[in-house]
């Protein structure tokens, strides 16, 4: 009897529609976010994450309405990330019904923002999202760097050091995405996941690259993640959340069924 490992479906939302691209291009429409969130809740999702990829400021209101609608009928934790840059952005999302917000680029540009946000709203609602890419050459000890702008801009920051710094600054959880694997369906970067999960004392969510149910189990068993996040394998009904949980349970992982 202990804490269950979590499965978190992620909805990339663009102008009110769920989309999924491969390495942030070639976007496919996957449907209505409220309808999809409802389905995931019924199937036993442990949390739901919305990533607002809307490029224009004018359309940001759309995600607030999506969260409001979902929060009035889905009673599991909801996280919203994408474009969170100010304390006012956070307040708006929490008031709409989000339980946590994901802070990504804004943390890189101004780490103090994470500190302010955690002091103001509590660490329990501050998820720092880290986009990391492997920068070591073959044969070298493995090393990953933080990238911004959807994986296009290197920052020179070591990903493991950054995760620990964010914990010290008040992050309650780390959402770790491998930019090398995101959208490839070839599995998590397990070495990266394990390096960060073992370096920090806060929970780590593995993300980026899930293509089948073994990948989810590997993220927990080999990557030592506390939770696993996936998008397209659930959106296009390749697998249900329940199938994923039964598969993980068969591998000896404790899940909520």
């Amino acid at each position, binding site marked *: 009897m202990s804490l*269950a490992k979590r499965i978190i479906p992620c909805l990339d939302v663009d102008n009110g529609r769920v989309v999924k691209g491969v390495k942030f291009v070639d976007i496919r429409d996957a449907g209505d976010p409220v309808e999809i969130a409802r389905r995931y809740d019924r199937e036993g999702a442990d949390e739901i994450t919305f990533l607002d990829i809307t490029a224009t400021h004018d359309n940001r209101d759309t995600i607030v309405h999506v969260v409001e609608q979902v929060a009035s009928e889905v009673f599991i934790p909801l996280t919203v990330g994408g474009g969170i840059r100010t304390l006012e952005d956070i307040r708006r999302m929490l008031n709409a019904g989000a339980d946590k917000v994901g802070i990504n680029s804004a943390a890189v540009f101004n780490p103090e923002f994470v500190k302010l946000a955690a002091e103001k709203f*509590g660490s329990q609602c501050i998820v720092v999202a880290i986009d990391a890419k492997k920068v070591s050459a073959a044969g070298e000890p493995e090393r990953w760097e933080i990238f911004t702008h959807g994986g296009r801009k290197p920052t020179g920051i070591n990903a493991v050091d950054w995760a620990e710094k964010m914990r010290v600054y008040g992050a309650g959880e780390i959402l770790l995405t491998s930019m090398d694997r995101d959208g490839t369906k070839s599995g998590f970067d397990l070495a990266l996941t394990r390096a960060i999960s*073992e370096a920090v004392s806060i929970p780590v969510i593995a993300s980026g690259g899930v293509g089948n149910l073994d990948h989810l189990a590997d993220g927990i068993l080999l990557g030592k993640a506390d939770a696993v996040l996936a998008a397209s394998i659930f959106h296009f009904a390749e697998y249900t959340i329940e199938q994923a949980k039964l598969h993980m349970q068969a591998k000896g992982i404790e899940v909520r069924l």
Partner: protein
Amino acid sequence: MSSVAVIDYGMGNLHSIAKALQHADAGVNVQISADPQVINAADRVVFPGVGAMRDCMQALHDTGLADVIREAAASKPLLGICLGMQALLSDSEEGGNIPCLNVFEGHVRRFSEHLTDKDGNTLKIPHMGWNQVKQQAHPLWDNIPQNSRFYFVHSYYAVPDHIEESIASSDYPQPFTCALAKNQIFAVQFHPEKSQTVGLQLLKNFLHWNGRF
């Protein structure tokens, strides 16, 4: 129409709990309020909270709501949630040693660092996610299967002086008290408003509870 007041003292987001209460029973009048008159007039009171204990107690004293909560706890069904549960103990070691409301005698302690699970992996703090809850008999567990999983997020937990007031426990990795009860007071460490079906059932049970057990 029966009414429930959700106490608003500026600690955390109350929309989730208000929405969940309304969803659990559409026939109940749910009010988020900092007004002692509204709270005093309500049939039931929910005392939620997230964040740090020092800020929480400061806010309760500044607003005068500390006394309002003590009064409510003595007179009508009261549900404490998360930080709202911890604030009902005598004191908390979070941020030094903060005196709390002393509705339940006992202390609030932090999970030890470097605890490991059965496979030797370090346990993360906060304790975050869905954990099983081992119930002791109480009407608020009606229609909730034994060992159901509820959603937790916390780094501190209650250690009551009177063990009979502990009405449920969870393991992380050692057993800790995750629900307290006496008279018309019930308090939980987890978030029923985020615990899907079983959480809504608990809220429904509270909204129908006559305060006796």
